[in-house]
């Protein structure tokens, strides 16, 4: 047995822990499960259907078990996903701070074995609490006559998700310096990565929906959880339908397969990060080639997910519903054309694509481009070794090529999707002007290069301060102006918001959308604010690059 798993069992499952945690889990599960079971079991038989002619209460254990399944699953998720995740993040960070991790780092076990040891050893008690819930699950499946194959699908994805959450927590524990922060950062990251991001699935980025167990739960299990003899409601039917198959390029994938693919890719990225951090703590989480590979994969998934929408306007989720709406049912503002909702959907999808790409570029530049210390270390090293330059993919190498490649990797699928939509007969809400590709692409490139220049000349406080100031402050100022006088300040608000990439990108997309704004009824001059945004972006790029160049000379 892996010594770290054995250590976890010895530390957290001594007899007294075993009994206490077992009783706690048993009481909690029994309470939730039995309450839901007895509640779901009761069926009122109307007087006219009753053999006695009086309304009666009947008991159906099948319905009870089906009712109890979801609370049971929730409780199992609480044990493994919530408690286990927090435990792994905080202990990893504590051991890193105290130096215990260094003892392990020095042992000849492979980094993979160490990662597995931490993933399965630290939450040993949480796994035990989960085990205690299994008899209830068995009862639920048998009494509720649930299809075993679908349940196995769900639990395979459940464990894959648990592994994913735990690995996220472990990697965060390895990366975040303060133990108390690590536990909460891990929980927040899990919420963000696996709850918030999947919501973007409704905006056409379907692959993001498959980071959780929800697709398998809704697609495979929910249809079997209704009480005997009852039909699914409209909402339930829509939900089940949404998770049945995943459009990807021109094919469809089952939700379980797609979930495994998505989670597998994230697991791979996290394993690679964990591997590097276990080898040497001071290494950045990703090397430059890893960063590029990860970003290329993200862009491929974005391309595949958005392909059906850009080729023939097909979309699932809320986006699909919006596209199919009757114009008469949509109450759009006067400034927009009456049939603008497909164009609006296109703007939402394009903005989401760009914002996701720019978010990923920000994170990757922060990780892979060297801070001033690392840059200096590279310079000192080549001076000593008499090398002409730092190899461009080394961690210490300047990130100019890296940032440019990231921007190009994002521009390429955007251009491809754009051209696909232009050539499609069913899409009318897209501009065929070359500037609708060139302007957003240039913005993305300058933005990436500015971020790289900022990263390489400032430490964390300076870099994140710069990003926060530039990306968030204009939005906050707009908020104040909007409260003061929305209509009177609207042009000023547009100019201000064009300074932040988060608000400038939707502006750019609206500006280039041919069928959205009603030219007869303009409220604001978008072309002026787009010019402001572009000029600000270029000035920022020139200023930061010059400043970095000056510091390099010094």
């Amino acid at each position, binding site marked *: 047995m892996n*010594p*770290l798993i*054995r*250590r976890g069992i*010895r*530390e*957290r499952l001594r007899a007294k822990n075993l009994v206490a945690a077992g009783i706690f889990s048993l009481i909690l599960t029994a309470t939730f499960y039995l309450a839901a079971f007895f509640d779901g079991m009761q069926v009122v038989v109307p007087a006219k259907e009753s053999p006695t002619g009086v309304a009666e209460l009947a008991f159906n254990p099948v319905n009870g078990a089906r009712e109890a399944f979801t609370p049971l699953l929730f409780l199992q998720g609480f044990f493994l996903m919530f408690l286990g995740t927090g435990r792994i993040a905080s202990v990893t960070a504590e*051991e890193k701070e*105290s*130096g*215990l991790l*260094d*003892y*392990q*780092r*020095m*042992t*000849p*076990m492979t980094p993979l074995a160490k990662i597995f040891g931490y993933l399965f050893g630290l939450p040993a008690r949480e796994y035990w609490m989960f085990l205690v819930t299994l008899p209830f699950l068995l009862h639920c499946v048998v009494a509720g006559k649930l299809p075993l194959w679908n349940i196995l699908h769900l639990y395979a994805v459940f464990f894959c998700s648990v592994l994913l959450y735990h690995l996220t927590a472990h990697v965060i524990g390895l990366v975040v310096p303060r133990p108390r922060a690590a536990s909460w950062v891990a929980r927040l990251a899990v919420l963000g990565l696996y709850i918030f991001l999947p919501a973007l699935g409704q905006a056409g980025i379907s692959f993001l929906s498959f980071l959780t167990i929800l697709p398998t739960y809704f697609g495979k299990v929910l249809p079997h959880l209704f009480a005997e003899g009852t039909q699914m409601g409209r909402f339930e039917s829509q939900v089940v339908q949404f998770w049945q198959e995943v459009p990807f390029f021109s094919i469809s994938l089952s939700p379980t397969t797609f979930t495994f693919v998505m989670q597998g890719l994230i697991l791979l990225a996290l394993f690679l990060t964990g591997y590097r951090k276990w*080898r*040497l*703590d*001071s*290494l950045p989480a990703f090397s430059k080639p890893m960063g590029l590979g990860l970003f290329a994969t993200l862009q491929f998934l974005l391309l595949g997910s958005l392909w059906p929408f850009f080729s023939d306007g097909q979309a699932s989720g809320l986006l699909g519903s919006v596209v199919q709406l009757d114009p008469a049912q949509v109450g759009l503002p006067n400034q927009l054309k009456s049939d603008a909702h497909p164009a609006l959907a296109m703007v939402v999808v394009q903005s989401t694509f760009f914002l996701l790409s720019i978010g990923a570029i920000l994170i990757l530049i922060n990780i892979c481009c060297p801070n*001033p*210390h690392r840059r*200096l*270390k590279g310079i*000192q*090293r080549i001076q*000593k*070794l008499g090398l002409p330059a730092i190899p461009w993919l080394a961690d210490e190498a300047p990130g100019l090529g890296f940032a440019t490649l990231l921007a190009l990797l994002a521009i390429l699928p955007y251009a491809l999707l754009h051209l696909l939509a232009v050539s499609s007969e069913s899409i009318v809400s897209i501009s065929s002007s070359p500037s609708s590709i060139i302007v957003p692409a240039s913005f993305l490139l300058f933005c990436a290069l500015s971020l790289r220049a900022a990263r390489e000349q400032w430490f964390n406080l300076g870099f994140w301060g710069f990003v926060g100031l530039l990306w968030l402050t204009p939005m906050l100022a707009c908020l104040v102006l909007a409260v003061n006088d929305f209509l009177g300040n609207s042009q000023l608000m547009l100019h201000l918001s064009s300074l932040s990439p988060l608000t400038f990108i939707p502006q750019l997309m609206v500006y280039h959308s041919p069928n959205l704004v009603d030219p007869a009824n303009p409220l604001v001059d978008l072309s002026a604010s787009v010019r402001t945004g572009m000029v600000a972006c270029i000035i920022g790029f020139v200023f930061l690059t010059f400043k970095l160049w000056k510091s390099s000379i010094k």
Partner: protein
Amino acid sequence: MIEVRELTIHYGEFAAVDQLSFSVRPGSIFGLIGPNGAGKTSAIKAIATLLEPTYGEIIVQEVSALHQAEKARGFLGYMPDFPPVYEDLKVWEFCDLFAQAYGLSGEQKKAKVLQSLHATGLQDHMHTLCRTLSRGMHQRALLAKTLVHQPAVLLLDEPAANLDPKSRIDLRNILKSLAHQGKTILLSSHVLSEIEDTCDTLGFMREGKMVLSGTLDEISQERQKKNFLKIRLAKPFPLLEKIILSIPALSLFEDTGENGTEARACMDGGEMEASEVLARLVEAGVPVSGFAIEKTRVEDLFLELESQPARKGDQP
């Protein structure tokens, strides 16, 4: 063996370790001494493969610790400064964890665990939870864990910190016995008497550089044209200080004993000069009952180095 060549570690522009070179041969105990911030811990961490140096080379048992870190780690046993333990494990479980992590199994593992517990005197506490150990026992548990896979090279950062005198003597004996078995031991300490008693070779670090290294005698010879003379008198002699200071080779007088029967003097030169001094004292009628060249103390060297001004332009 350990061989360190031009090891340089930068934190930004500050060089914590600057072109450090030294070697430790098998069977030797090398003591690194230096004030706080001298770069001892950074150097030891780099040798332990836990810190990436800016440049330089570290060879452990003929394996590069920089380019083949995983392989080099198999030869290393590392005990850090302020060492933590797994508090919820028992002492034997703590050692067992690392025995298994280093690839030992079955009876061999059991034997090595018991052996390391015996070597550190922890056999009676093997079933105690680590959280309940005293500081000294805690330190022993760490040493037991470090020894469990019988590493060829031991890196001990302040191993005597927190130990009571008895434990220090035990630690010294353990380390000497390990050196006799052919282990290469590198340790750093602030307890200078401990270093003096335990180590056969010393390295003085200051501001990231090795300013002196070698055996204590070698260092003394290289370092000093001066020696201390220890003079014992049969009876008090009031004119002793005046006579001593009148001899050109002597420059300092210290009355070190009670009743004025013991004194210490600083002398330029070696044994020849000492014999001349003795002749002059006897000639002057001083009742000399004992006369010896005092062995140089690490503390004297340390204080002498400490009193020298810092390098120009260096950061604190």
